[in-house]
């Protein structure tokens, strides 16, 4: 899966392509653009939320833990909307950070998590596949979401 979008960045297959040239300042504009992309492509509310949250949390990690701050750093987000699958690729110039293996503070099965690890935990649980590589001093994360999967309906604790 890795490199799938990288190799198609100049083709019409990549339907969403956004570069944050000042990541800490451009994050809100990125999320607004993703929301518009989701509406334009008639994606369901739950899937739009999932995409936005995954990108939001991973870009926040780039900024907070990867020191991806300032004009010398960039984060690029590409999205490919296929019939049954949605692929997200995030490339950043920050410090090495592997969201697939970074330790989480507590297994949620053993109780509520400390809030510090929640964002990354949510990303792992909301993605169907996630791969990480480090190339050319950049982090590359490629995520796949299965569009055919039914959204979990949660019963509220009364």
């Amino acid at each position, binding site marked *: 899966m890795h490199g799938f979008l990288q190799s198609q960045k100049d083709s019409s297959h990549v339907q969403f392509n956004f570069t944050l040239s000042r990541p800490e300042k451009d994050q809100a504009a990125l999320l607004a653009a993703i929301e518009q992309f989701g509406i334009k492509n008639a994606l369901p509310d*739950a899937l739009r939320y999932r995409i936005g949250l995954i990108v939001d949390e991973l870009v*926040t990690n780039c900024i907070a833990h990867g020191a991806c701050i300032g004009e010398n750093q960039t984060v690029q987000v590409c999205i490919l909307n296929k019939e049954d699958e949605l692929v997200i690729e995030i490339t950043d110039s920050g410090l090495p950070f592997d969201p697939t293996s970074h330790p989480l503070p507590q297994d949620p099965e053993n109780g*509520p998590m400390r*809030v510090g690890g*929640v964002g990354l935990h949510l990303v792992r649980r909301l993605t169907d596949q996630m791969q990480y590589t480090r190339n050319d001093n950049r982090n590359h994360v490629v995520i796949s979401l299965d569009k055919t999967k039914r959204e979990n*309906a*949660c019963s509220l604790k*009364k």
Partner: protein
Amino acid sequence: MLLKEIDHPDAAIFHVEGRLDSSSTPELEQRVLTSLEQGVKNLVLDFSELEYINSAGLRILVMSYQRLHPLGGQVMVCGVRDYIAEIFDISGYNRVFSMYPDLHQAIRTFAATQNGQ
């Protein structure tokens, strides 16, 4: 985000509409902190019109819980949409906060508690 505070003698009630993300959480956090400093014991978040929340938004609820729980208070979350309820489920926070289908049921619950029922 559109934030409305609903007057109630026994709780701080906030109706949050729209997106609760990194740009809007400081406003909610400040309003919640002000309520906590005034000695409120019950914090109620009406999320029936909430479209988006991230971990920064969840952090406000956790911070509130950490302050209120030792005092016998509680954080009540109402009306979350299914796709947002999933986030509470995955994070385990649905076992920490009291979750209610709507604001009316949350108010009825703590009103009953106040009356010793």
